[in-house]
């Protein structure tokens, strides 16, 4: 069964450092997403991406965050200068179509900022 894959599974980084989280969405999907989950809390939307551009983003997704689809398979989330409060599980997700269609999630990348 096709699945969303994410790397790394866990990363520890120093405050102020740049982090890139990588994702390979399901191959025939056209819509890509990043969500995050702070420990013990609900899953929060960060950004959606379609046709090589951001289609929607939340208040969390400030200027420190960026997304990119550098090639035909990868979808990345970059945090330019990490803060302690960026520590969370980051989930990549994808769907065939946009709103109103099933979104499939990866296993997550656990980011710890120290």
């Amino acid at each position, binding site marked *: 069964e096709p699945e*969303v894959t994410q790397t790394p599974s866990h990363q520890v980084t120093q405050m102020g450092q740049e982090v890139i989280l990588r994702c390979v969405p399901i191959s025939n999907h056209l819509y890509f*997403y990043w*969500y995050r989950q702070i420990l013990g*809390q*609900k*899953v*929060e*939307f960060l950004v*959606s991406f379609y046709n090589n551009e951001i*289609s*929607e983003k*939340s208040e969390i997704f400030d200027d420190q965050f960026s997304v990119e689809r550098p090639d035909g398979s990868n979808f990345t989330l970059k945090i330019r200068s990490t803060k302690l409060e960026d520590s969370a599980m980051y*989930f990549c997700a994808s769907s065939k179509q*946009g*709103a*109103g*269609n*099933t*979104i*499939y*999630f*990866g*296993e*997550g990348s*656990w980011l710890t900022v120290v």
Partner: protein
Amino acid sequence: GESVGLHLPTLSVQEGDNSIINCAYSNSASDYFIWYKQESGKGPQFIIDIRSNMDKRQGQRVTVLLNKTVKHLSLQIAATQPGDSAVYFCAENIDSGNTPLVFGKGTRLSVIA
């Protein structure tokens, strides 16, 4: 305020019994709903979805009920098994535009063997 929420944060069920997990939503424009299961340290796993033109949908051992009048969603798990122990999230979406999927806080289901 929060659009999607859950009535019960934890639920303990005896193995073999049926489980019912509830969810309230406040956005009357929402017309697509998904239940996800999240095991510890893993990503949300799709269980079942329902659109607002339906009030019930059944899957394998799971049933989702939608009551649009009171903006309530429930997930029923038949013959609950230890492997069903997880956190369950409901999520809502509007079936048009770019509105993102919004998650509720989650209910932890513990199955007692």
